[in-house]
């Protein structure tokens, strides 16, 4: 455990030192995963779904705020859908517009949560979203998380019905749009997952903020179990086909991620918990103090010992010893060093000779030698 804690501290130090590069690299990776997933699922426009476009978008978005990544992903989705069918693109624009009006106008900075939720759903790990954001975020994160789930099911539905939507005439487009809109709004699987994510999120957040021991662990497990149970209940009650493997697998992954997040952001020692009670004029206070676990990283000092330096230090030591033994004045100490440097090469010897001659001539001109004699 102590090794892990030291590792965490080292990671923190590395992050503090290279945070700018790490953030950019993570943003780039996030961009590749996101744009790659969008292009792989609904890449109807060939030029926009190329690997070059994915990498280019990811590279550009890495140097811009996360909000720009959100806007870029939205535009990419709409472009792909526009190529597939104009009414479907218009419908998607309407859905995104409603998301913006009802939530993202207030906190546009939380918009990236939508993308994380979308990615988690695309990679078949939906339960991770409520557990991770319930542990790390506030209750308002539930809205973007739910929006991410809705966006995923929209994309998924487009992917499934793309062949039916592709080659339709004007009349077929309208009827296709009506069918699509009905399917999108009345998608029971989507609403079940929305409910699972929302309730699981609130469970995680409610437990995490309680003053109970191991609150984070309990919250992670409870959140994952809640989401899995709601998913299963939806399957049984509504006759849905949500994969049990995905539900349970993502539940297990969510618990593991919860443990990792606890270790990284909330490592405390519950065995040293203290309960304190005191009062002032107006209140009684019942305080529970849980100490944080902190480990000082052992500092390694590296000494560079080279052959050359070793000789030099030995020479100086000998000289000092000799000086002390002979009782010589301090001014003559440098003599052996000069001898040593003079012995290095012919060029250096010539240089030192020049320097000595220059010093002598200068001291003669300025009359410094006379002053010394006096």
């Amino acid at each position, binding site marked *: 455990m102590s090794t892990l804690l030291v590792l965490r501290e080292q990671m923190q130090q590395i992050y503090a030192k290279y945070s700018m590069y790490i953030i950019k690299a993570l943003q780039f990776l996030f961009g590749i995963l996101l744009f790659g997933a969008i292009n792989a699922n609904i890449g109807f426009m060939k030029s926009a779904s190329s690997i070059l476009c994915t990498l280019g978008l990811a590279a550009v978005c890495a140097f811009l705020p996360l909000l720009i990544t959100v806007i870029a992903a939205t535009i990419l989705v709409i472009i792909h859908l526009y190529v597939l069918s104009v009414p479907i693109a218009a419908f998607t624009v309407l859905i995104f517009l*409603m998301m913006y009006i009802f939530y993202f*106008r*207030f906190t546009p900075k939380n918009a990236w949560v939508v993308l994380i939720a979308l990615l988690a759903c695309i990679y078949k790990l939906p339960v991770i979203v409520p557990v991770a954001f319930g542990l790390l975020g506030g209750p308002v994160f539930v809205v973007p998380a739910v929006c991410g789930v809705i966006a995923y099911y929209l994309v998924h539905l487009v992917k499934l019905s793309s062949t039916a939507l592709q080659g339709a005439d004007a009349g077929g487009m309208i009827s296709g749009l009506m069918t699509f809109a009905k399917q999108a709004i009345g998608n029971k699987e989507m609403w079940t997952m929305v409910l699972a994510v929302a309730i699981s999120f609130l469970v995680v957040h409610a437990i995490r903020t309680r003053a109970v021991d191991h609150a984070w662990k309990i919250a992670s497990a409870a959140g994952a179990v809640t989401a899995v149970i709601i998913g299963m209940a939806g399957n049984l009650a509504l006759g849905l086909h949500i994969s049990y493997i995905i539900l349970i697998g993502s539940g297990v992954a969510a618990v593991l991620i919860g443990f990792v997040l606890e270790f990284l952001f909330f490592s405390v020692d519950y065995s040293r918990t203290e309960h304190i009670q005191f009062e002032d004029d107006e209140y009684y206070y019942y305080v529970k103090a849980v100490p944080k676990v902190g480990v000082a990283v052992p500092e390694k000092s590296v000494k560079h010992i080279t052959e050359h330096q070793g000789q030099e230090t030995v020479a100086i030591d000998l000289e000092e010893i000799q000086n002390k033994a002979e009782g010589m004045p301090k001014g003559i100490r440098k003599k052996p060093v000069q001898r040593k440097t003079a012995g290095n090469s012919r060029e250096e010897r010539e240089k030192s000779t020049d320097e000595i001659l220059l010093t002598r001539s200068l001291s003669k001109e300025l009359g410094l030698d006379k002053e010394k004699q006096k």
Partner: protein
Amino acid sequence: MTRAAIYEKNRAEEDLKISSYYKKDYASLHTWITLVWVTIGYICAAGLVVFCYSDSLLEDLNFAKLFVIAAVAIGAYLVLIVIYGVCASGFYKKKHNQAKQRVKKYYRDLSRLGKMYMKEKK
């Protein structure tokens, strides 16, 4: 100095703009804007629902059914407007308070910095 520089880079522009308003003016202006946006959003949502379920809505349409539909639509709109109005008012008041506090702190930092410069000059 570092704190002031970070603030200047990240939030100063927005905060200074917000704090140039009185709290009441800022909150009411943005609440009205929110209500306009919510109306647009509601029209979109209602239009979408009508479009999707137009066949079942228009089926056996009579005055009573139309009245019920209109009542539900208006009732839902009013509920939405009230909820968003209250929430937006509270949200923007809080936002104004926070911005004002940050600006206050920033000015305090600047004045401290100014004093330090004066001392150095002397």
